C-alpha cells in the first residue's frame, strides 16, 4: 500500500464526488487538504481552551498560551531551528516576506542591491520591488537557464559589495526546480548579504534542517502543509533577528511602553504584534505532528514517485508540453504543462468535469511565464494523500482534452 492509500482516509474531503466522479485533488501546491487530526485539534481548542494568549490570568488563558507556545516548539523541531525564539508566527508566507522586506527596507540606502530570481512567486518579488522603489535601491534577478535551473554563474556575478539581501525560492511553484539553496546561502554570506528563502513549496515536502542550511530567514505557510489558512512561519536566525528592528508595532511585541517610546519585547514575540492566530497555531501543530508521524523522508519519496509517474504519463500524450526539470529527483511535487490548442483555463474546467482539480493560469509568477513565453499553464501538484491512481485519472482526462473542446 502506498503512503497515499494509507492516509487518504484521514482526509474527509477526499470522499467528495465532483461532477459525479470521485475527487482527484491535484492542487495542493495552492492549498492542501486537511486531515481529521487538524480539524479535530482546532475544534477541541475552540470548544475547550479558547482564550487570548499571554495576558489572560485564568485557566483558559493559560491553556491557550500553552497550546500556542507548544505549536512553536513543534515547528522549531520540524524545521530544525536551534531555538524557539527563531520561530515567528505570521499569517502566511507573503506576510513573512513583507515583514523582513519592510524591516530591511528601513536600512536600505540608494544604490543598495537586492537579488531575486526570475522564477519568483509574486509574493517574493513585489515586497522587494516596493522597498527598492521607496529607498532607491536596485532589484536584480538571477536569470533562468533554458533547462529550468538558475544560472549560478550569473548569480556569482550579481553578488557584490552593495548586495544586502538575496531572496529566492527554495522550490519553484511552477517549474518545481529545487534550487541549490546551500550554495546560494554560502555565496551570499561570503559577499556579506543576507538570505531569505521562500519555502512555501518546500516545507510541505522536504525534511528541513535550517540550522545547518544557515539561511537568515525562511518563510512558509501552514495551509500548504495540511494546516489551516491564516498562519505561517517566519524563521529567523537568532543573531540576525536580534539585530533587526521590527517593522510592525502593537501589543505583545513590547516589554514596556511610555507615551512617546517603548522597549521591544524579547524574541520571538517582538515580531508578533497583536493577537496571533491561536487556533491556527494549534492546527499547524497537529499538521506538523501528522507529517512527523509519516516521516518527511517517506513523504518526499512518495511525492517523488508521483511526480515521476506524472512526468512519464503526460510526456506520452501527444501535444503535451511539460515545463521544468524532467528528473523527479531534482523537482518538487509540481508538474506544469500545456496541451496544444487548449487554453489552460479551458483545460482546468474540463478536467474539473472529470473530477480532477488542477491549477491553471500564470501561478502568480508572471515574469516566469513571460520568460517561458506562455500566457499560462496547467499545474498538477501532489501531497501525501495522492495515489498513483490519481495520476492515472489525470493522464486519462488530459488525453481526452482535445476531443472535448
Amino acid at each position, binding site marked *: 500500500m502506498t503512503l497515499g492509500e494509507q492516509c487518504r482516509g484521514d482526509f474527509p474531503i477526499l470522499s467528495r464526488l465532483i461532477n459525479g466522479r470521485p475527487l482527484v485533488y491535484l492542487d495542493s501546491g495552492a492549498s492542501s487538504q486537511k486531515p481529521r487530526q487538524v480539524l479535530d485539534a482546532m475544534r477541541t481548542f475552540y470548544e475547550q481552551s479558547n482564550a487570548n494568549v499571554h495576558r489572560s490570568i485564568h485557566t483558559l488563558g493559560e491553556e491557550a498560551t500553552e497550546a500556542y507556545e507548544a505549536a512553536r516548539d513543534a515547528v522549531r523541531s520540524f524545521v530544525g531551528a536551534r531555538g524557539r525564539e527563531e520561530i515567528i508566527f505570521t499569517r502566511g508566507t507573503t506576510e513573512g516576506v513583507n515583514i523582513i522586506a519592510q524591516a530591511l527596507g528601513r536600512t536600505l540606502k540608494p544604490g543598495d542591491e537586492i537579488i531575486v530570481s526570475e522564477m519568483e512567486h509574486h509574493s517574493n518579488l513585489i515586497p522587494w520591488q516596493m522597498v527598492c522603489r521607496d529607498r532607491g535601491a536596485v532589484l536584480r534577478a538571477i536569470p533562468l537557464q533554458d533547462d529550468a535551473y538558475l544560472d549560478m554563474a550569473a548569480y556569482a556575478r550579481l553578488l557584490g559589495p552593495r548586495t544586502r539581501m538575496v531572496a529566492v525560492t527554495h522550490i519553484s511553484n511552477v517549474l518545481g526546480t529545487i534550487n541549490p539553496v546551500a550554495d546560494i546561502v554560502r555565496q551570499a554570506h561570503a559577499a556579506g548579504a543576507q538570505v531569505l528563502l521562500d519555502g512555501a513549496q518546500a516545507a510541505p515536502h522536504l525534511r528541513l534542517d535550517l540550522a545547518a542550511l544557515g539561511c537568515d530567514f525562511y518563510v512558509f505557510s501552514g495551509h500548504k502543509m495540511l494546516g489551516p489558512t491564516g498562519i505561517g512561519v517566519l524563521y529567523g536566525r537568532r543573531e540576525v533577528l536580534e539585530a533587526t528592528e521590527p517593522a510592525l508595532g502593537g501589543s505583545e511585541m513590547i516589554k514596556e511602553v511610555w507615551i512617546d517610546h517603548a522597549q521591544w519585547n524579547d524574541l520571538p514575540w517582538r515580531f508578533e504584534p497583536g493577537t496571533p492566530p491561536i487556533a491556527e497555531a494549534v492546527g499547524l501543530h497537529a499538521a506538523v505532528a501528522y507529517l512527523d508521524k509519516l516521516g518527511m523522508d517517506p513523504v518526499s519519496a512518495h511525492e517523488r514517485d508521483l511526480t515521476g509517474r506524472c512526468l512519464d504519463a503526460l510526456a506520452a500524450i501527444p501535444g503535451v508540453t511539460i515545463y521544468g526539470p524532467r528528473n523527479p529527483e531534482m523537482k518538487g511535487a509540481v508538474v506544469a504543462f500545456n496541451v496544444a490548442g487548449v*487554453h*489552460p*483555463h*479551458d483545460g482546468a*474546467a*474540463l478536467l474539473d*468535469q472529470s473530477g480532477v482539480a488542477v491549477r*491553471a*493560469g*500564470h501561478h502568480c509568477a*508572471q515574469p516566469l*511565464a513571460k520568460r517561458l513565453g506562455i*500566457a*499560462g499553464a496547467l499545474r498538477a501538484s501532489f501531497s501525501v494523500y495522492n495515489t498513483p491512481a490519481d495520476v492515472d485519472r489525470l493522464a486519462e482526462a488530459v488525453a481526452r482534452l482535445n476531443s*472535448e*473542446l
Partner: protein
Amino acid sequence: MSAVQYSDVIRERFRHPRFRGRLPNPDVAFEDVNPLCGDRIRIECRLNDGRLAEAMHHGDSCAICAAAADVLIELAVGRLVAEVGRLGAADVLERLQADIRPTRMKCVTLPITVLQGALEGREVAR
C-alpha cells in the same frame, strides 16, 4: 439554457469561428486584458453610416472568451453603434446556451467591454 459550461455553441464557435481574424485598415479598434488569466482580445471594426458594418476579433484567449467574441460580433454587425452599446452579457449568454460559472463570467464580458471600448474610441475621435 443548457446545464454544461462548454456548450455545443461554445465548442463550435471555438473550433470554427465566423469572425476571427484581422480587419485591414479598421476604422476603430480596441484590445484589453483579463487580469484573472492574462487573456488578451482585440476587436477591429469598420463603421458605415452610424452602423457597425464589419468586425473581427483575435487574440490569445480561452474557448469561452473566443466564442463570446464571435457571437457578440454576430449580434452586433449591422446594428447602429448606439444599439451595439446596449448589448450585454445576457444577450451573449443567450446565444452561447451555456451555464457559465461565476469564475468564468469575465471571459464572457471581456469581449463586450472591448467592443464598447472600440466604439467609444470612435466617438471620442469625432
